[in-house]
């Protein structure tokens, strides 16, 4: 069981590395764009669309990891109350499971939208990158997030000891 946790931890490294690398590129790109424009009057024309793609990659690479680690912003005002009532774990599991399940529909709909963009042959302005790649990536990662959350919810409900160690 321990090894499953470790494999999962390893697995989260990959999207986080992708997000980190993209963020670094975004930073250098924005810097280069300003310098090129202000000193050589030669802005990087594709900067805007590259920025947009970079943002999607950063957010949706990190999202499944954030969700899987339960790193979302929550209001923990009533925690002591729930703990005293002994419902903390059940509640946490149910809520996480519900979030995951409900996210499946938007994810599936995003796949449809990606397919539509593909059939229209939408391309980005300067670099002519097919738009559906990005939409498809978003849809795929949303689905991964949904599955991660649903699984996490189930694990909290039925196998709480599994999460020990896999948490961070």
């Amino acid at each position, binding site marked *: 069981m321990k090894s499953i946790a470790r494999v999962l931890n390893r697995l989260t490294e990959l999207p986080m590395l992708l997000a980190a690398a993209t963020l670094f590129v975004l930073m250098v790109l*924005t810097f280069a764009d300003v310098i090129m424009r202000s000193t050589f009057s030669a802005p990087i024309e594709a900067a805007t669309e590259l*920025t947009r793609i970079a*943002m999607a990659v*950063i957010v949706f690479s990190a*999202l499944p990891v*954030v969700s899987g680690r339960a790193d979302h912003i929550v209001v923990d*005002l009533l925690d002591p109350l729930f703990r005293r009532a002994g419902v903390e774990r059940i509640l946490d599991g149910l*809520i996480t499971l519900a979030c995951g399940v409900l996210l499946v529909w*938007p994810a599936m709909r995003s796949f449809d939208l990606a397919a539509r963009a593909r059939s229209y042959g939408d391309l980005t302005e300067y670099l002519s990158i097919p738009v559906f790649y990005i939409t498809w990536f978003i849809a795929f990662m949303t689905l991964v997030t949904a599955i991660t959350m649903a699984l996490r919810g189930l694990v909290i409900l039925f196998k709480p000891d599994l999460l020990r160690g896999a948490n961070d």
Partner: protein
Amino acid sequence: MIESLIGFAAVLLLVLLRMPIAFAMGIVGMVGMTYETNFVAAISLVSRLIIDTSQDYGLSVVPLFILMGLFVNKGGISRELYQVSNAFLGHFRGGLAMATIAACGGFAAICGSSLATAATMSKVVMPEMRKLGYSDELSSASIAAGGTLGILIPPSVILVIYGLLTETSIGKLFIAGIVPGILGILFYLVAVQISVYRNPAAGPAGRRFSLSEKLQALSGVWSVLLLFFLVIGGLYGALDFWPIHLTFSPTEAAGMGAMGAFLIALFRGTLSVSETLTVLKETATTTAQLFSVLIGAWIFSNFVNYAGLPEGLRDMIVSADLSPWLVMTVILLIYVALGCVFESLSMLLLTVPIFFPIVIGLGYDPVWFGIIVVVVTEISLITPPVGLNVFILKSVVGDISVGTIFKGVTPFWMMDIVRLLILVLFPWLVLFLPSQM
């Protein structure tokens, strides 16, 4: 209109049941839209918002400013800022507490988060103040209060979120935050003086620094000060002269700031490859958190608008013939009350979609309202029973009671209320600088 009130109650309930705020707002918005239109339309709207929000060019300002703050922090700037402030203010009575306020203000100028400011500064200054015999009350309160400056002095994550939610210019919001931020520092300095006046033993004076010591302390922070002036100056359009012609959009300013901070940290040799990676990952995590709440808030506000809540409330106000300042007072009181219970970002996300249309309908300026909301949020960070900064401080420092901090924070809290009143009564204090852009 009644649907949106039910929706609002549902969000509150789910949030209190510990559902992530992004999902609470998103799910209620999705269900609400299904009720208003149909399931397919609602899901389509949600997916469109998910896809479009994550590719919004203007939103790239979020990760870049967070990155800038984290890189500067890695350069060890918090200690140096404190040393400079101490060199100039330390010999006064309550001097270390005043230096803490000034250093927090300086740190806020590169970091957009109040919690991060409080957490970082407490590690640096708490031991120093204890060494000099400062009372725990005064030392912890000055950090908790000083930390709140993080979200007002630009760059500020909360102002970015407000700007994005309401389509108000982020550049103008940042510039508008400068005067109220400086005012905040000055008022907190007064609060320190009030504290030591009431109890002189709480903050004994430190030693006087020689001029060369002062200059030496300054040498540590000049690069970061320069970076701040580059970022804010470029944003304000103050650097548009021969031969550099630097004017930035908020995203560009953030990009320059992040790159500059990265280079500074690199030059100082305080940044290893693995640390860079940690900073990048941390930023990506925060970005994903913030984007999820933004998407959730947008879904919810789509529903609230569709169901006509803002119009309904506006009609009510018009038909009841309430004066704008009365409505404003009620809104501010609601904020202070909510602030006792909610954390700043959640509070902003829940309230702005509802209050913003009303306030604008009454003829108030969107930039001014943004600053006022942030100032009220600052106050909520140190208001009992759940002032978040106080709890952060408690968890970082450890051997101090929440009650002690709240007791010490009272003069600061009162000065905050005075500042809020001044900003409400004299809007030009907020609006003068951005109107020059």
